[in-house]
């Protein structure tokens, strides 16, 4: 299985406790920046009703979905109790202020299936 690291922009493009969206093969991916400059990437769909997590409020390593207030852990993509569900995540790294995201090519399979 091969993978590619894509550059998605500068860390400074995203406000602290904010997010930006990139698309990969039609799938929106939300890239979050925490207060301490950690960066996480999740598919931009809430496990509840597909709400755009990128538009939520970020706090600690979590995001609160804008539609009905589920709270999703940024590092694992899992919903916090009492809710249940999970959103696929992607690996990201920041080098010299540049954010990169890893996309796996499991040949014919879409990226969400590998996460």
């Amino acid at each position: 299985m091969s993978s590619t690291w894509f550059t998605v922009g500068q860390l400074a493009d995203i406000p602290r406790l904010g997010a930006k969206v990139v698309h990969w093969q039609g799938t929106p991916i939300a890239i979050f920046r925490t207060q301490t400059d950690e960066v996480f990437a999740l598919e931009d769909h809430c496990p509840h009703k597909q709400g755009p997590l990128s538009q939520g409020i970020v706090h600690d390593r979590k995001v609160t979905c804008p539609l009905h207030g589920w709270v999703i852990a940024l590092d694992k993509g899992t919903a916090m109790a009492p809710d249940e569900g999970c959103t696929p995540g992607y690996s990201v790294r920041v080098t010299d202020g540049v954010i990169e995201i890893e996309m796996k090519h499991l040949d014919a399979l879409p990226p969400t299936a590998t996460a």
Partner: protein
Amino acid sequence: MIRPRLIVIGNGMAGMRTVEELLKLKPDLYDITVFGDEPYTNYNRIMLSPVLAKEQTIPDIILNDENWYAEHGITLHKGVRVERIERKKCEVITRDGQAHPYDRVLIATGSRAFIPPLPGADLPGVVGFRSIADVDTMLAVCREGGHAVVIGGGLLGLEAAAGLVSHGMNVTVLHRNGNVMDRQLDGVAGRILEKTLEDRGISIRLNAHTASLHGTGRVESVRLKDGTELQADLVVMAAGIRPNIDVALNSRIYCENGIVVDDTLQTYDPKIYAVGECVQHRKECYGLVAPLFEQAKVCANHLALYGIAKYTGSMTSTKLKVTGVDVFSAGEIQAKPYHEEMVLADAARGVYKKVILNNNMIEGAVMVGDTMDGAWYFQLMRDKTDVTALRDHLLFGQAHVGNSGHGAKARVASLPDSAEICGCNGVCKGDVVKAIKEHKLFTLDEVRARTKASASCGSCTGLVEDLLASTLGGDYSAAPSVKPMCGCTDATHDEVRTGIIRHELKTIRTVFDQFSWKTEDGCAKCRPALNYYLLCAWPDTYQDDAQSRFINERVHANIQKDGTYSVIPRIWGGVTSPSELKAMAEVAERYAIPTVKFTGGQRLDLLGVKKEQLPHVWRDLSAAGFVSGHGYGKALRTVKTCVGKEWCRFGTQDSTALGIRLEKLTWGSWMPHKFKIAVSGCPRNCAEATVKDLGVVCVDSGFELHVGGNAGIKVRVTDFLCKVATEDEVVEYTQAFIQMYREEAHYLDRTAPWIERVGLPYIQRRLIEDSAGRKALAARFIHSQQFSQTDPWTERAEGKDAHEFAEPLVLA
């Protein structure tokens, strides 16, 4: 249609209350079956005491009759006991071996009287005090001159004793400890109560330990450890209750003292919920209805699949239901070293009141003989109110504090039925009592909803609670107390608001530090609130924190379920023109906006706009003279007007122009929640001014101002504030009222709940009686408006926050 099956085990107070709450939310969601091992429909167990005392009859205390079950399509199996749940097969098994399949189960099996393992405890004539059957057994034995022994001098024991004595029985209460009701009363209070009960012919033996019961064929006597022998035709065991957990245990559901549930009332099996006395929640088992009803509400919310309510435990208070004997107790009963105690004892009148304070907050109250103020103390205690200002009068009661509005001599129980309880809504004592009885009301909210008593200014709340207590005899639940802002802090909204001013906190981070926030960045509840509080406190210098705003306010448009946005331009006072309409039409066509809709607020909504299109749409709208309508904000929404005297044959003033003037003054202002205004040209009130946060109703001689209306989730008609003569006064009052709401309400409180909390008289005092204060409020509003009346759409069309609206990058 096949519906999921809900099986309820236990046809008692908590179980049926949960079903009632569920039917309110989702009447058709489940196919409901109820099993109850008593041969009756659901009844009010609390009222068994008055039934025993022959003050009420069985039909009086039935809560839901057969028709009710039939009407709601509920299958009721009376007199059928459930043995266990086959959890793997999802079947409930009854004692006669029948299997009933389920999708969800609610266990509400209550508790039973604890029968101490004494020799002879199984003799006929020995009963608990729990059910209609127990009362029937007691009544069958009752006769003038007969002998009864009650084991246990707690609440139930004393109520049983009082009931039996009223039939002419000789009753002895045996109590293990040094004073009766020792879990609720201190020694002094216990002594007064003992004396009152002895005056009624009940003999009480303290520190009495039962050794055995004797009799041939049925009970005849009770022997104590000290050798005393007491004659007994009837022995009532009131030595405590035990949760009924056998069904749960047989089904291998995790139990400790009770069935263990989480904050959603779910057991360890996610298909099985439990409520009532059979459950153990956060280590507590409850034995009063108020907490059980709170549980019922939360459980129903989850059964209805809303999944948003949480039960976090209850604070309880106790009243003894023996006619003519007043006892109230809540919280701590003995002062600890760090407590301060205030006591009023009037042995001659048989009155004793003790209030326990910690740091000027009430942590406990014990009252005998005069319990009028029990509800008031309980409220102060739950709200953690600082009582420094009330101290001098605290023990003399609410009437002395000048807050009840009904004079010191009001003794609610002795008031005639025609006495007015609620001045705002003209509700008399008789109306309230009748509603409580006829509609089986248990809570303050229910009485408010039915009768409107206490639904407006709230100053009669204490009286209504006392009426509930005296009519119902038992407990009742009131609104939850003041809580911390959210899980990130112990500080309340008020503490934070005052702290921001007092310590001159200017950023969210300094608030976190000052109040030792438990999370790094707060959460989606507290951050928007803090951002607003800071903005309101420092309008000229505070740097708005976009990341602490809910998405709608962050991007100045409403997010829709598909992730697109809606755009509602301001239509001043609901008046538009052909050129404005043309401009809107062109924008809608140019950007292929899928839906154009008239809103409920007299304006047009463009729905389905993509985020990256927003600045372009705004640029074009702004070129045509439109500004944001703030349909997305905790801010001024619409000012709804009617045509008024310009056109209407009934119009008394120019309501349209006045509405536009008010909207021009108030738009752009951030508030604790959304704020809606309306101006009607005459009392026919076509602009529906009396369900707005602020409503103006024009009359010939001037303008009536109404506040605190709400037409949303819970409809509330406005309170009449005052009448003024000129438009300028309308403006000043509007500005002052808005500013007071901005400065004092909790974030996400609309004006309606805010006014219910602080009371209309308070608002009137500040706005009407204190004219200097009113002018100062208005001036602060005008000052802050300088900084908020920049159109956010134009700014963003010109490039502000461009990162929000950028086309997403496509990776390839």
